[in-house]
């Protein structure tokens, strides 16, 4: 079929786009990364404690506490959707995990069989209770994510409304199952649980390690698999995605499931750090998570975003918070400043895209 080419394409009329006008250099993520670097330098001179090992560990831990959920919500934002239920989802997953853990470990529980030595059967396998309870926590997130995805992709409800409803449903269920009291991880596996969620490896906080692994996985998924390509196509032009035969419904459901699972995992990790899963845990975290994603360059209109941006957004928020504390500025200023940064980040991107 191939035609003999009379001459190779010459590109006489089409200029090449310069390296600094494409890729990360031309993205909001790039600019925010630059701003972050500048901020770090300023912090270094402003406070001698900023780059101390303890503070760095603190910063790494703190931003990891919202960054995993931010990775998840970034998937949804790239498709042009939004998930407001992440905060409630964190709480609910954490709560289910610690309740299941406590329940399975309790000798008097009707759910478990006693072994001869007076402990529950499950407790005799180290880590089994932990595994089951974490899977239970992620399981409820999976169900909520499927429900979100079904309403949005199959029934065609608006993502904003659906997940706003889910925010309330999941938070409400959290209060129902806990009677508003919150719950605590307990039983023989609680120590493993704390080690996995708030421990560290050679001084690197465990949540940070999970974050790096998940972010790298996400980068590969987004840029090197057809699923990732379809996620971007969906955000770029949903109708085109449909016409070219992309399974739009399936991809949409999958991103909401990924988002809910990320939020659930995040919640479980936070509860390990807090030592409990209070019923009002992670209230309004969805706003921080979405703010971090947007500051990092995810476009709420869809089609743009990535793991680096999500992390950069989270780091920026945390460095500012941390910096305000070190500078002894009232922490109440933090929220106002976060708002300013959200608008500034988007504004800079708008000015830049007007210029080119």
């Amino acid at each position, binding site marked *: 079929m*191939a035609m003999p080419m009379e001459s190779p*394409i010459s590109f006489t009329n089409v200029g090449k*786009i310069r390296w600094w006008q494409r890729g990360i250099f031309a993205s909001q993520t790039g600019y925010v990364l630059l701003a972050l670097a500048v901020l770090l330098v300023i912090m270094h001179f402003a406070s001698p404690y900023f780059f101390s090992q303890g503070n760095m560990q603190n910063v790494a831990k703190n931003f990891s506490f919202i960054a995993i959920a931010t990775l998840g919500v970034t998937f949804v934002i790239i498709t042009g959707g939004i998930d407001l239920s992440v905060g409630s989802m964190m709480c609910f997953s954490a709560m289910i995990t610690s309740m299941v853990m406590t329940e399975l470990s309790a000798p008097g529980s009707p759910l478990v069989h006693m072994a001869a030595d007076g402990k529950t059967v499950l407790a005799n396998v180290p880590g089994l209770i932990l595994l089951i309870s974490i899977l239970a926590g992620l399981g409820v997130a999976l169900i909520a994510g499927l429900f979100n995805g079904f309403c949005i992709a199959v029934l065609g409800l608006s993502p904003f409304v659906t997940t706003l409803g889910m925010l309330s449903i999941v938070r409400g269920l959290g209060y129902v199952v806990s009677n508003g009291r919150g719950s605590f991880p307990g039983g023989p596996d609680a120590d493993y649980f704390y080690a996995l969620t708030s421990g560290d490896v050679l001084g690197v906080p465990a949540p940070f390690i999970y974050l790096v692994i998940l972010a790298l996985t996400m980068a590969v998924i987004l840029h090197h698999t057809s699923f990732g390509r379809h996620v971007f196509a969906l955000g770029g032009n949903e109708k085109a*995605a449909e016409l*070219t035969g*992309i399974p739009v419904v399936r991809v949409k459901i999958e991103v909401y499931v990924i988002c809910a699972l990320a939020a659930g995992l995040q919640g479980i990790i936070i509860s390990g750090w807090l030592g409990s899963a209070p019923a009002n845990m992670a209230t309004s975290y969805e706003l921080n998570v979405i703010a971090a994603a947007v500051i990092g360059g995810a476009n709420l209109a869809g089609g743009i975003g990535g793991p680096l941006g999500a992390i950069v957004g989270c780091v920026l928020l945390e460095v500012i918070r941390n910096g305000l504390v070190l500078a002894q500025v009232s922490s109440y200023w933090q929220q106002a400043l976060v708002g300013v940064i959200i608008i500034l980040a988007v504004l800079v991107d708008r000015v830049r895209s007007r210029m080119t």
Partner: protein
Amino acid sequence: MTKADATPVLELTGIGKEFGAIRALHDVDMQVWPGEVVGLMGDNGAGKSTLVKIIAGNFRPTHGEMRFAGNAVHFNRPVDARAVGIEVVYQDLALADNLSAAANVFLGRELKRRFGPIALLDHKAMAARALELFGELRSETRPDDLVRQMSGGQRQAVAIARTRLSNARLVMMDEPTAAISVRQVEQVLGLIHRLKEQGVAVMLISHRMPDVFAVCDRVVVMRRGEKRADKPIHQTSPEEVTALITGAKEAA
């Protein structure tokens, strides 16, 4: 002309379509031969987009039979039509602006390399194949450039290159020259010639008389859901076609 080839690529017999009480199409017979460019003209509401949607598998006809390369076909979804070798270039091109040209060409049928259980995109192979396709279409389009930064003509090339991935035997183009500049219209008409040279049948749905007369071998005029004319281009004139479209002349 290749009428020597015994079977037409597409053969419609008595195609009719009703939406409730509305008769959108009535008893349309039509044949398209390999390597032929057929212009499909008609005013808004004449039934041309319904006809295109039936051929592309968006709608099922209420009456009539459709044969593709000699075999009777029934499409339930657009994917079915694509599977036999019918490709459509939609009016709005169906491109994702935020992706590169190569990504758009391969959208929905990405090339992959398997590493055990994981299949990763084969960026290199896709870029190379896309460049080859742009070369065939003589379009100066770089596979790695984002579609957002492209001219209307380049976008057309991307949308048309997509149809060349599979060995499409019939390409339908819906108003490909409606929203682009004069120079780009030239490019698009050139692209249609390339397809024709390669033995692909092209159906051009257009309002623009000069374009139809520039590239088509035959023109089919629809009016009020019926085929009113089906003539070789050299036996008709823009004046006659206009009269057929508006109804000043009933049939030819």
